[in-house]
């Protein structure tokens, strides 16, 4: 009963063609997980939403395969999915342990040569449009992402809508896809991760056999997407006809995550102290000072903690009543940031926030899909898959000073503020 995931050994290996491999054995359930992270996300695309569309196209499976990827994974008893983030696109499969080699072969086949046709391009562009309609044309859809990015950032790479632009996705050609695949989906620009009920030796042998013969291609040159921090407060506004209540999103630039993971962990603990629930500092202060209820969220990282290269952001959102001016919310945020920067969190408060982070990390990692994806992204982004198992300790080691320092870094005179103007529910409010 004492062996837990945190103690599982992590094995790293690199194939001759440059493919980085991570294997982590953990045998609490007869299930295996595979993730392939390609080092290309929406930050480096030229067409808004292209990386996301290409992610969809990869599910056609390998060239010459009898069926698409979904069918081949599902008929083996597993499930699969993918996501496109700033700096990577990851594909993952979770299967009964005995189907491991089968899905490794599927991943190898589509890494070697995916099956991409003009018809699939057209259909998937339409599926992506449906996906975006469903996710964005709803109350608070696209809030804060992707609507906050162009307020905080100036360059196309950092500011554009990486989910997908309807117009931009019209007219994508097979040749364009082939060029993108050739340039960005090379083995040397990828990480393959295998975790769960697996034998390390046999897994490495199978990986060598299935992936080793994929021809090497150069990885795209590393590009820096750095840009200056905003000089002052940058304001943006979005209308949301379906939203019943107003809201704000605040975005702050943060230190380079690769250079200082500890700073990001402190920023994450700070987010938990300020805005993890109704009893956190920000909603408590607003209740005390104004007698109003706000719904808040905050996190370090556009999508997740330690999930991108530089630059990334720290985000806070607050949905507030019409009768509470947004300036009051910002004032309360700055008062709490000031208090934490000056005196740090109270020891009990820090303890609770660390524990909360640790608990949520453990609950998340009990899902093999999350575990295998985290190992892979930490290898791809920071060459440090072991960060996955060290995170609980890092949370525990966060000090009062580090959290104070994190609060000091979120300056009221250098931030993006996105204001959501609601269009619905005003008549309700009058009652």
């Amino acid at each position, binding site marked *: 009963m004492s062996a837990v995931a945190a103690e599982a050994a992590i094995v790293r290996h690199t194939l001759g063609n440059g493919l980085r491999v991570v294997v982590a054995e953990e045998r*609490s359930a007869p299930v295996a997980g595979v993730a392939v992270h390609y080092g290309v996300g929406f930050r480096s695309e030229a067409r808004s939403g292209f990386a996301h569309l290409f992610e969809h196209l990869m599910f056609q499976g390998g060239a010459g395969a009898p069926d698409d990827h979904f069918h081949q994974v599902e*008929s083996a*008893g597993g499930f699969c999915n993918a996501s496109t983030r700033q700096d990577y696109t990851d594909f993952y499969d979770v299967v009964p342990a005995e189907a491991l080699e089968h899905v490794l072969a599927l991943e190898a086949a589509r890494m070697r040569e995916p099956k991409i046709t003009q018809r699939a391009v057209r259909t998937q562009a339409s599926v992506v449009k449906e996906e975006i309609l469903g996710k964005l044309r*709803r109350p608070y859809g696209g809030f804060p992402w992707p609507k906050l990015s162009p307020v905080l950032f100036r360059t196309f790479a950092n500011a554009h809508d990486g989910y997908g632009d309807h117009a931009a996705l019209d007219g994508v050609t097979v040749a364009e896809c082939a060029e993108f695949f050739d340039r960005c989906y090379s083995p040397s620009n990828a990480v393959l991760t295998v975790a769960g009920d697996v034998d390390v030796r046999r897994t490495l042998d199978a990986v060598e056999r299935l992936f080793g013969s994929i021809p090497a291609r150069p990885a795209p040159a590393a590009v820096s997407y750095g840009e200056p921090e905003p000089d002052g407060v940058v304001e943006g506004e979005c209308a949301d006809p379906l939203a019943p209540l107003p809201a704000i999103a605040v975005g702050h630039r943060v230190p380079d995550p690769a250079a200082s993971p500890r700073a990001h962990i402190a920023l994450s603990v700070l987010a938990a102290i300020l805005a993890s*629930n109704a009893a956190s500092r920000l909603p408590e202060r607003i209740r005390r000072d104004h007698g109003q209820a706000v719904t808040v969220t905050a996190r370090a990282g556009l999508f997740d903690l330690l999930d991108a290269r530089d630059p990334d952001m720290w985000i806070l959102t607050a949905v507030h009543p019409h009768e509470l001016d947004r300036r009051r919310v910002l004032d309360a945020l700055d008062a709490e940031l000031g208090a934490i920067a000056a005196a740090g969190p109270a020891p009990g408060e820090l303890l609770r926030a660390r524990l909360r982070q640790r*608990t949520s990390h453990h609950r998340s990692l009990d899902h093999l899909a999350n575990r295998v994806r985290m190992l892979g992204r930490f290898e791809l982004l920071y060459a440090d898959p072991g960060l996955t198992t060290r995170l609980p300790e890092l949370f525990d080691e966060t000090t009062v000073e580090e959290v104070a320092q994190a609060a000091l870094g979120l300056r009221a005179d250098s931030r993006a503020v996105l204001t959501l103007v609601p269009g619905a529910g005003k008549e309700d409010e009058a009652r």
Partner: protein
Amino acid sequence: MSTGLADRALPAGPRVLALCRGATPMAEVRLHVPADARTPHALAVATLLAACLSARYGDKGEAFELTASAGFRQFAVSGSCPVERLGELLRTLAEVVTDPAVREDELAWERTQLIPRLRMLRSYPETVASAALHRHLFPGHPVTYQTAEEEELHRVSAAEVRALPAHAFDLKRATLVVVARTDPEHAADLAEKALSAWRPPARATAPASPDMPPVPAGRMAVLPLPGAPQSRIRLRAQAVATDDPRYPALFLASNVLGGYLSSRLSRNLREEKGYVYGVSSFFDAHPGTAYLGVDADTAAATTGEAYAELTAELERMRTAPPTDAEIAAARTYALGSMATRLAPAAALASALADLADGDVDPLWLLDFPRRLRAVTARQVVEAAAEFFAPQRFSGIVAADPHTSGLLTSDLTFDTVPTPWS
């Protein structure tokens, strides 16, 4: 599914089920209590109790988190903690459902927070569609009270909230599920100890929840949503309950139709036509019964086409019955999913509690793989022919009546009255 299990019926309730699972040192706890909240006022009382408990124990506890939720026929508490804090969590759980010492000021504040949250919830298109579907299929039934009404929330007193467990909770028929990385007998001991003070209240049993009526056949309606860029198609047909002998065959037939991404619906509407991002068929289970559900979201402009394809695929379940290859794939997927989807402790705990919520013995889940393996191809084909005829389905299309083309189509639709019109 063969690891140890502790199964104990405590004298005053609940039934305790403990299993050892998990890759991380955590414990997941689910408590399901049959509770009577069949009037809008009773639902408002239960909703506020759930909000007060979630605020008190979801936010401030160092050791664990508890969140509660209320429906018209059950009260549920869900919790998680590091495994060494399990005893503490269970002691708190026992206390909150027997003697929730809710104060008037606490209640007032939770009401202040709850009202905007419910307003936000009710503004989501899927909530709007699901509420309209229930009003259309089950008019007047308590299942149509999806969320507590604001006027009712204002009428609730703290005394009513404090008295709710004694009045409405049927602890004798309650189920407590513990899934943790620890010995199940040890977990059950902790639960037994924590709950030893439970006493059945004077009114020992809640009345059985009102039966869900059968879904009528062939009643389609439009919920007009002017300006909606995306339409929501929601169909239901009468099926059989989870413990019915025909259920496993029907389950596989439903998987063939729309249970996963390589199913017929997903291949046709998503991979071939690009009409949808998601489309699925599934079981919508309630105590004593279940419905087949088919849901799809599609752009206004493709509503008519998507609806026609959905209907055609339902028809094809009879005219082009599931093939042996389709049945084999559906079965392998179902069996594999039992391993992959239920590997996380939280997922297993929730699946077991959901069965208790549907008035099915949770241990049914552990036996389901055996029943799935025993299904013959002939049974799947028969289930497909019997249950999926398009005329058996009723439901709604929530859409802009103009841009979706529904006003000019030759399909016959009723209109679901909007509650706000």
